[in-house]
């Protein structure tokens, strides 16, 4: 009999990467707030999977990976690194961004976006009008900037929901 090593595919990213299963305290508590669960996953799908004209999914995943590396969130670094591999991004770039730097990224526009991500994750109050104007002059439209700002802010949310649920799971496992 062939045993497959990959886990069953679950639609919900947080449940999957945290290993939250029905019957556990963290899963049952979380799924009382169905609307939040659904809107969280729908946001991720829109920001990191659906097509956005002019913003390739691999660029958006790289932004997410950098945000998670800087937060830090080891679970989501692993998740977004794996998805980048599936998009054919080289190990060298994935490994570097997983450590919070991006000197190997050649594309000027993408470098600007990653610089913006760095500021917004590590010191959000430092983000200013000049930073947005720089993004515009690198060739991004206001629609692109809206999507990127939502993406970076969403990842800040997602990693904190993840960290809280992980602690709740550990708490549930002891009692």
């Amino acid at each position, binding site marked *: 009999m062939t045993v497959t090593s990959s886990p069953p595919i679950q639609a919900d990213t947080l449940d999957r990467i945290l290993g939250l299963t029905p019957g556990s305290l963290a899963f049952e*508590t979380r799924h009382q*707030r169905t609307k*939040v669960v*659904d809107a969280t996953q729908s946001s991720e799908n829109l920001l990191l999977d659906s097509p956005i004209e002019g913003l390739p999914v691999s660029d958006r995943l790289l932004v997410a990976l950098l945000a998670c590396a800087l937060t830090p969130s080891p679970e989501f670094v692993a998740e977004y690194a794996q998805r980048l591999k599936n998009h054919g991004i080289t190990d060298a770039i994935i490994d570097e961004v997983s450590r919070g730097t991006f000197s190997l990224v050649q594309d000027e526009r993408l470098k600007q976006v990653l610089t913006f991500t760095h500021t917004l994750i590590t010191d959000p109050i430092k983000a200013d009008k000049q930073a947005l*104007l720089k993004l515009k002059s690198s060739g991004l439209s206001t629609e692109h900037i809206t999507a990127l700002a939502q993406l970076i*802010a969403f990842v800040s949310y997602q990693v904190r929901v993840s960290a*809280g649920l992980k602690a709740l799971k550990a708490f549930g496992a002891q009692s």
Partner: protein
Amino acid sequence: MSEVIRIKGFTNETLDWKAWLDVVDIEQATPEQIAILEESHPKAKVSDYYLFLAHQPEILRQRSAAFNAIMYAPGGMPRAERELSTAVVSRINGCVYCASVHAQRFEQLAKRTDAIKQVFEEPRTAGTTEREKAIVQFSIALTEQPDQVSKQNIQLLKDVGLTEAEILDLIHSVAIFAWANRLMLNLGEPVFPSA
């Protein structure tokens, strides 16, 4: 609003907010954009913040669905305590605009301003009861060092009487303001009432 609070650059006054880039012109908005603005917030059609986010209407729709479910859903953690946690997160992240809005909401719901004054003065020691102090401490921890939050942090909340459902609401409230603060801080700036 019973009294104006101004402490360390934070206030409970009603502020305006101005986008740094072009917003959607409501006269030119698509029916989809109008519908999503209307379901996002009662004043979204005259708000620079929502008119900016309407550049990506579907993303705004899901953000608003998450935000409204977290902040307004019945049951679970009392809404005043959700507002307290979001005021703490906004104070820590330096989001003056968000802090002003949620200071007002706390006062409307709790009929007092004492905890908010403490948050503005020094968030790390804020809280008028042991329960409030635990909520404040958890909000700071999940904002500043999410990777360090552990079952001990959950235990501290249980010790002051929070249920698991309330703890989930607290996690969500803190997290959604990691999101909200970053939008408010990087897409525009607060406008203060003219003196």
